[in-house]
C-alpha cells in the first residue's frame, strides 16, 4: 500500500502516525507541505533516515520545487506527477492527513 502524507512533519504528527501503522517495506510519498521533511541538514534529517530504513520514501518534485527544497536527503526518491501516477498504478493508496 502507498502512503500519502501531505502535512509538514514540523507541524503535524501525520508522518509519525503513518510510520507507526504502515507495514514495513511500504512506499511513502511526501506531497505538499510534507516535502519539508525531505530537506537535508535539518532537525528531522536523522529521523527521516531512520524511517528510510523501514520504508521507501518518495517526494513530489513539483512540491519540492515550489518550496525551494533543493537539498534533498540522500536516498529519498524524487518523482513528478507522472511518477506519482505510476506509484498509484503499482499500489493502492491511503492518505494520512
Amino acid at each position, binding site marked *: 500500500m502507498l502512503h500519502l502524507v501531505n502535512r509538514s512533519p514540523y507541524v503535524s504528527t501525520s508522518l509519525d502516525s503513518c510510520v507507526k501503522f504502515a507495514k514495513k517495506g511500504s512506499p511513502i510519498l511526501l506531497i505538499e507541505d510534507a516535502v519539508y521533511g525531505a530537506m537535508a541538514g535539518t532537525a528531522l534529517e536523522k529521523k527521516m533516515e531512520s524511517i528510510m530504513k523501514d520504508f521507501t520514501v518518495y517526494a513530489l518534485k513539483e512540491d519540492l520545487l515550489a518550496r525551494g527544497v533543493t537539498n534533498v536527503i540522500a536516498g529519498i526518491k524524487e518523482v513528478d506527477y507522472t511518477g*506519482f501516477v505510476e506509484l498509484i498504478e503499482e499500489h493502492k493508496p491511503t492518505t494520512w492527513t
Partner: protein
Amino acid sequence: MKFGVMVQEGPYQHESSDSAYQFVKAAMEKGHEIVGVFFYHDGVINSTKLTDPQQDDRNIVKRWSEIGEKGVDLVVCIAAAKRRGINDDVLAPGFRISGLGQLTEMAINADRFVTFGAS
C-alpha cells in the same frame, strides 16, 4: 486502469485541489480512466461559478470544469453543498450535485481511489 479521486479541501485554501487536479491531468495523459471526482466537505467550494479570481491567478473552478468537459464525472456532495450555500443555481459547468451513494459507487468501480486533503 480506473481511478477515483476525492477532494476534501476548498480551492485556494491550501494545495489539495491543485494536487488533485495535477494528478487527474497526469493520469489522463497516461491513458487512465477517471471514473469520477468527488467533492466533499469544504471541497464542494471548488464547484461554484461565483469564483472569479483576478486574471493573472489560476482559476481552479474553471480548470475542474475543463476536466468535466472531457467527460469526467464531477460529483458534489449534496449535504456538504447545502451547508455552504451551494446549489444548482451557482454550480459551475461540468459539476453535478449528488449524494454519498455516488462516492460509494466510484470507490467500487475504481481500481484505485485517491483522497486529497483533510476532512
